[in-house]
Structures are given as C-alpha cells and as structure tokens.
C-alpha cells in the first residue's frame, strides 16, 4: 500500500509508485533460507497461536453460520430440548420468498451506496480544500476531523440523537430561526427515509475523517512537476485533477471505496441505538433484520440465512479489494 509505506517512512518519497522493498524482499530472503535457520517449521510455529484463535472464533462460527442456515433452529434447539434438524433450503426459501426481505435488501443497498458516495466525494473535496488553505485553518480542520474519527460510535450516536431530539434538539431550534421554517417539535424519526437520512449523516460524519486523512497523504505524493506540466500544456484545474491527480490516487480510492462499502453495509449500532433497540420495520437494514429474526423472533436458522446472504453480497466487493492489494504488490 503506497500511502501506508510513505506515511510510516521517515521521508516521504516524491514518487507515488510503491517503493521497491516488496520486490527486493524475496531476494533478500534467499540466502537466509540457505543458512538453514529454522527451515519451514519456525514460521508455522510462530503462526500457530494466531491461526488457532482465528480457527476457533472465526473459522468455526463461519462454518456454523452455513450449517445453521440449513437447519431449523429455534428456542427449543437452543436449550437442547430438540436436536436441530436439516430443512434443506427451507430457510432460504422462506427468506427470499418474503417481500419484506427484498425491501430490506434494497433499503440497505441504497443506504450503503448513499453513505459511500457522499463520504468519498466529500472526503475528496475536503482533502483538496486542505491543500489550498492556510496552515492554521488546516490544523483546525484536522483537529475537528480527528476528534470525530476517534469518537466512539455509541457516543457519536447518542450525541446525534440529542442534536436531532424533537423537543429540545438544537437542530430544530436553529433551523426554526430561519425565515419560513418551522420545525419546532419535528420528529425526525417519524418516517423511515427521513430517520435513515439522519443515520446516514451520522455514518458519514464518522467516516469522512479517515478518507480525508488518507487522501491527504496520497495527495502529497502527487508530483508537483506533473501538475505543472499539465498546466503548461493548457489543462484547467478540472483537467489536472481528472488526468493527473485522479489516476495517481486511483489505488487509494479503490481501497477506500471497498473498505467503505464493507463498513457501511455492516452498520448496526447506529440504527439499533437510535431506535432504542427496536428498529421499526421502516428502519430495518440487513444487519438489524438478521439480528431481529434470530434474537427477537428466535428463528436462528433464518437469521443465519440472512447473514449469509449479506456476506455473499459483499464477496464481490471483497474480491475487488483483494485484487487491488495483490496488484499494488502489498501481498507479494
């Protein structure tokens, strides 16, 4: 990862292309193997504890998630009164045949897409802006961003709940001071779309800082000579951005976008806490829907089926991410 390499290095290299170390690494390893130090058992011994933990708490549950989604598993199976029995594709048929499920899928995709697009565009604009402001303004913006980024999700959620409170929330009070606006007592969570828009705002507020900070690091690596040359060749600001800056930043952008998709599809506490632990039907996203099916309706089989569908939906995005990692030589 180029941004990673340069920010950890003492002196940021002027070029964007990842520094040679990854390429040099395998060569340097050769003589060491020849020295016969440890052979192949040492690395596996070092890896063993890590792999063991991951197999227990990640591997096993993952397998269990798949088997569960093919079983009838409710209260009585949970307490061991009845053995879990296979129902084949019954859970999937039940879930996929439910019209509500497809509404939830659509809502989740629209929600996540909205979050990702706004986060990335806003992040890019702020990163570009930070290149143009005075030093003290940059410092101020950075402080605000880092404070927002470091804020625990639950704290941020409760703060937003308070900002948007219908009776005493500051937002209603301030907006109502504008001429022609009367939002006194307005309940932002009375309707699903409006409430989810508020939650989207909360997610974006927490996600933008990471994007800005990473893109800012990337922007420092865009060679000034290249931009200069493009400008001399008659490119306007947009042309420079489109044909010089953007291509150079592309690996970082792909990485940030895929990560954002994964994070934003997994939004849970924001919705859950905003709706006091019982999201209404209009607020259900795939994550809360799966949770609801398992722990409220007590149908663990269907809940798992929904979770599995979510994971499968994300596999495509993960594939893009992994390909990018392989391409830039981070995984050599």
């Amino acid at each position, binding site marked *: 990862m180029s941004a990673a390499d340069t920010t950890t290095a003492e002196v940021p290299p002027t070029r964007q292309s990842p520094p040679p170390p990854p390429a040099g690494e395998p060569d340097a390893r050769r003589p060491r193997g020849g020295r016969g130090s440890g052979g192949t058992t040492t690395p596996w011994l070092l890896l063993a504890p890590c792999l063991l933990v991951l197999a227990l708490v990640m591997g096993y549950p993952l397998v269990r998630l798949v088997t569960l989604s093919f079983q009838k598993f409710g209260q009585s199976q949970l307490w061991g009164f009845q053995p879990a029995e296979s129902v084949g594709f019954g859970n999937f048929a039940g879930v996929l045949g439910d019209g509500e499920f497809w509404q939830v899928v659509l809502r989740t995709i629209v929600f996540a897409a909205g979050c990702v697009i706004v986060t990335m565009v806003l992040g890019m604009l702020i990163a570009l802006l930070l290149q143009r402001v005075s030093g003290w303004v940059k410092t101020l913006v950075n402080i605000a961003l880092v404070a927002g980024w470091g804020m625990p999700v639950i704290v941020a959620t409760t703060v937003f709940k308070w900002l948007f409170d219908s009776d005493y929330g500051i937002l209603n009070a301030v907006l109502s001071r504008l001429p022609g606006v009367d939002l006194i007592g307005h309940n932002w969570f009375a309707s699903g779309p409006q409430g989810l828009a508020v939650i989207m705002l909360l997610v974006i507020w927490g996600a933008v800082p990471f994007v800005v900070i990473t893109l800012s690091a990337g922007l420092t690596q865009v060679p000034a000579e290249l931009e200069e040359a493009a400008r001399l060749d008659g490119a306007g600001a947009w042309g420079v951005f489109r044909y010089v800056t953007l291509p150079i930043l592309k690996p970082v952008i792909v990485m940030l976008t895929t990560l954002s998709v994964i994070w934003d599809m*997994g939004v849970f506490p924001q919705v859950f806490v905003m709706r006091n632990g019982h999201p209404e039907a209009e607020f259900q996203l795939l994550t809360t829907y799966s949770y609801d099916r398992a722990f409220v309706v007590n149908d663990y089989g269907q809940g798992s089926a929904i979770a599995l569908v979510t994971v499968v939906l994300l596999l495509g995005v993960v594939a893009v991410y992994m390909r990018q990692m392989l391409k830039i030589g981070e995984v050599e």
Partner: protein
Amino acid sequence: MSAIASGADPATDRPRRRRSKAGWNLLGLFVFAVAGFPVYWMLNTAFKPAKDAIDPDPSLLPTGLTLSNFSRALHIADFWGPVGRSLIVSLAVVAIGVVVGLLAALAISRFAFRGRKIVIVGILAVQMIPLVAMIIPVFLLLNDLDQYDKLSGLIITYLTFILPFTVWTLRGFIVNIPKELEEAAMVDGCSRTGAFVRVVFPLLAPGMVATSVYGFIQAWNEYLYALMLLSQKNQTATVWLSNFSTKHGTEYAPMMAGATMMALPIVALFLLVQRKMAAGLTAGAVKG
C-alpha cells in the same frame, strides 16, 4: 469546482491569489464548524446547568459552567463497574493480541515458506467479514462452551477482529525495518533471536505501542457483542451509555456528561496514535 478553477489559474497575479486564499480559508472554517459541532455541542450540554439543556430556545453559546451533570451521571447508574469491565476486556485483548499477533507478523514478514501467501490472503480476507454477520454462531458457540455472560468469552471474541488487524499493521512496521540491520547483528555473532531482541524489537516498539493503543480503542468501542454476550449485570461501558435513561425518561444533560467521560480519554489516546495508524489502516482496517 468553479472555485477551484479560479484558484488554480496559471496566470494568477498576487492580489487575486490572496483573495482566493481567503475564500478557501473561509470554506475551511465552515468545514471545521460543521465537523466539530457535534463534539462542541456534547461538551456544551455536558457542562451547562441541566435546566438550560431543556430550554426550547437554546443558546448556542455556553450558558454557565457546572459539573453537576457529571455527578448526576455517576449517580444514575453504576459507572465504574462497566468502565472497569471494559478496561479488563480491552487490556486483555490487547495484551494477547499483540503477543500472538507479533509472532504471526514475524512469520509472514521475515520468513519464506510454502503457504505464506495463502496465510496473508486469509488474514486479509478474515478482516473483511462483517462482524455483525457472525453474531448468531458466536453466540451459540459461547453458549455451548459455557462462556456466555463471562468476560473471558468476550475477550476471545474480540480477538477475532483485533488479531488480523494487529498482524497486518505490525507486518507493515516490520517490513519497514531494513533486514540488513538484523543480518549485520547476526554476522557479529548474535543468534537470530538475539538479533531480533536487540535490533528489531527496539525499532519496532513505537509501532507496537501505536498498534496496541489502536486495538485498545477498537475493543473499548465495540458495542454489539458486548450487548449480546453479557447480561445487564455485567455490561460494559458502551452498553452502559446506550442504556442511559431513567424512569423519568432520558436526561440528556447527564447523558452528554457520560458521553464526554467515555469519549475524552479515547479521543486523547486516538490523537496520540492517529498519525502512525492512518498509514497502517489503509491496508485493511477495522474501524466501524
């Protein structure tokens, strides 16, 4: 975008450049105000007298300075119990995570062996699985192992997301330490372990501190598993805050005081390490 065009005009003369700079600064201050407002309002509400917090026409500026909301927050429900439990869980997770993660990171960054690439891809892929999707089987697993409602169960669970991240970031830090240093020490008669302890470890220490702090923050902030795997009497700090209400309804001013108490140490820690972490994070991070 049109604003950018004027700012980057090649033939800009001095005064014009200055004017556009002022415009950018103004825009920057606007971003600062919007991004910082939720934090400001949290602090503002936490320190103002409780009766001013439920003013239907609230003042944007501070109306007074009082600590009564904090003492009220500490009274409403047990605060130190949940904080203590959060501390135990987060510290244990970080301690185990860093040791186990360091070993694994060494294996994949300093050794050549068959299957190395698969391990790397596997660790990266594990990070990508949304934790929320795993809650049902993890819940059943801990139930079967008799670890439900135990801090140890939560600690094991948190390792799933702390470990891959720790391995990956530490690997990044190790790769940046030149191999030649180690080799020089070995030529001078150090064993491989000796070379690591005397040469690599001191260089790695800052990276390890940053990784630990970041892992601590992640564990501290986790909500869903803490909610699901522990009962009310064993709740952690995040769950404590989300349950913040009394029989009179939600008291926002003490709630913001509670939020402040939870956020300040974490944001402070975060400020310490964010510069170092922003780098490692791009390579597959765990926030959210």
